[in-house]
């Protein structure tokens, strides 16, 4: 079985072609191709218009984020996580924060967890809307993009409201949140959650039963459950193959076990099922966000950080009259906190799949090693398996349906 599940390297395709041993044509797709969703190069081996083999070539966006983090303190490294999966910065923030919090062993107040869940679910909606718009755009359905980005703008406005930035939020910090949510946060989110269900109906009306859409997606790029697990596919790509695995249910974090939601699962593992699963996830995210919204309203004002002074800086008002607070403030902003020696691994369900963070501490204020299990990077390995024997035009649909973010692939 493993021989059929091989992921080719670009050299495996180019070298026989240069030596003149093949009858097929070798073609470069990318790195600057509009439908590769970033700087991804695909080396295609073609027989006419049929894909014989395809090898992804990544690394054009490698920025050494993991290496750079080793020279920052734990709290200052948060900003780098935004830059990985730039369509879901809050999920990245959360994953890193949870890993360091596990290392520290701090308790996070319930209110903070509720705000985190609410924001991460809004992030999932925003990210899925970009996927929906670009996926439809790749298959020549122009107008869906405009509908999807209309609501995405509204969500980015909420992020701007809470963090001051639309995309590079850095809002979820180790120990809690950067600052408390503003007073008009709840009504703004409420307005969004009110319109979302009917807006999702609108997108579905455009695509779900559309014969052109069905022709391009049904039965294309099929991967079965066994191969999907072997390739490490996660997120909607795995669930479309019929595996009901979601970290939010399997190993809950941030109190997800207390929310009422379902895991949408597909049957055939084709592009259409991935589309259906993600559309159903949008509805589930609205449902979770609404529950978190109700809880946040019931909880009222409260802390936005852990009360552990060894991790969270004291409020500014205390500094003027408490010597101890001044010392904590000074120590935290000059030196940072020191987690105990050890390592911790945390994984969360990001919009693209399982995002994992492995942090090693040597007892100093800077991480010894940070590694991210990037779902886009690992999902991309399944592309050759799915694309073999299909047309080049199907490859375009396939890349979009895997929903990779190249900033996360290369880190």
């Amino acid at each position: 079985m493993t021989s059929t599940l091989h992921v080719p390297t670009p050299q495996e395709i180019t070298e026989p072609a240069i030596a003149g041993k093949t009858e097929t044509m070798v073609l470069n797709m990318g790195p600057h191709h509009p439908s590769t969703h970033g700087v991804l190069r695909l080396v295609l081996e073609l027989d006419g218009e049929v894909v014989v083999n395809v090898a992804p070539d990544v690394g054009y966006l490698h920025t050494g984020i993991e290496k750079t983090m080793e020279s920052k303190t734990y709290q200052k490294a948060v900003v780098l996580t935004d830059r990985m999966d730039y369509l879901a910065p809050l999920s990245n923030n959360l994953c890193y924060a949870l890993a360091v919090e596990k290392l520290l062993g701090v308790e996070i107040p319930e209110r903070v967890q509720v705000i985190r869940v609410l924001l991460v679910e809004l992030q999932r909606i925003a990210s899925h809307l970009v996927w929906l718009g670009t996926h439809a755009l790749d298959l020549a359905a122009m107008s869906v993009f405009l509908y999807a980005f209309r609501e995405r703008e509204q969500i980015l406005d909420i992020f701007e409201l809470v963090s001051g930035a639309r995309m590079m939020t850095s809002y979820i910090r180790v120990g809690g949140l950067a600052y408390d949510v503003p007073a008009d946060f709840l009504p703004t989110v409420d307005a969004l959650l009110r319109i979302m269900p009917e807006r999702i109906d609108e997108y579905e009306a455009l695509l779900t039963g559309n014969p052109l859409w069905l022709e391009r997606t049904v039965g294309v790029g099929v991967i079965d459950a066994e191969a999907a697990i072997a390739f490490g596919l996660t997120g909607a790509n795995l669930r479309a193959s019929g595996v009901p695995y979601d970290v939010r249910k399997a190993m809950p974090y941030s109190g997800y076990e207390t929310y009422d939601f379902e895991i949408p699962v597909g049957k055939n593992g084709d592009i259409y099922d991935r589309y259906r699963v993600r559309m159903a996830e949008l509805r589930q995210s609205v449902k979770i966000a609404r529950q978190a919204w109700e809880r946040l309203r019931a909880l009222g004002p409260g802390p936005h950080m852990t009360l552990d002074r060894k991790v969270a800086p004291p409020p500014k008002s205390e500094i003027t009259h408490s010597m101890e607070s001044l010392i904590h403030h000074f120590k935290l902003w000059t030196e940072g906190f020191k987690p105990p020696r050890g390592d911790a691994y945390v994984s969360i369900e990001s919009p693209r799949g399982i995002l994992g963070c492995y942090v090693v501490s040597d007892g100093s204020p800077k991480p010894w090693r940070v590694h991210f299990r990037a779902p886009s990077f690992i999902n991309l390995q399944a592309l050759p398996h799915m694309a073999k024997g299909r047309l080049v035009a199907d490859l375009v649909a396939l890349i979009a349906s895997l929903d990779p973010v190249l900033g996360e692939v290369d880190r």
Partner: protein
Amino acid sequence: MDNRTLLDRMTAQFPDAVLEPVEFRGDLSLAVRPERYFEVARFLRDDPTLRYTFLENLCGVDYLGREPRFEVVAHLVSMLHLHRVCLKVGAPEEHPHVPSLTPLFPTANYQEREAYDLLGIVFDGHPALARILMPDDWLGHPQRKDHPLVEEEIAFTFNQEWIYAHKPFAKE
């Protein structure tokens, strides 16, 4: 499945392979002998009562100044028991070789290539161990702790000839 049950099971099955089990913040990690690493992973994957079929994460760590210097960390998940276990295997500096898990878990392919590219850990048995993130002509492994941290000079018209002459690709 909890950490205790799994640990008992593993020590009974491999009395000499599991070097040092550590439980930290509720997570179990097993340091295993390099020569038994592949066998332990295969047992975890294939045993019908365990079924750790999903390799969630695999990465390398450079513990400069410690022996063995490198460590490969693999996180396996059992979708049957909803439990995660971490396997760790060391590799010495002078011979940084570790068995590859790609024949068991095809998903390890890119992750092992990344660890090879950035840390220089060689995975024996990998079908196509090549650089993945850095350019093919890059010298050294940039995520090693002793890799020099230097800035790259920006090529302008007045100095580009000198800069390009000293690049690795300028040799031929």
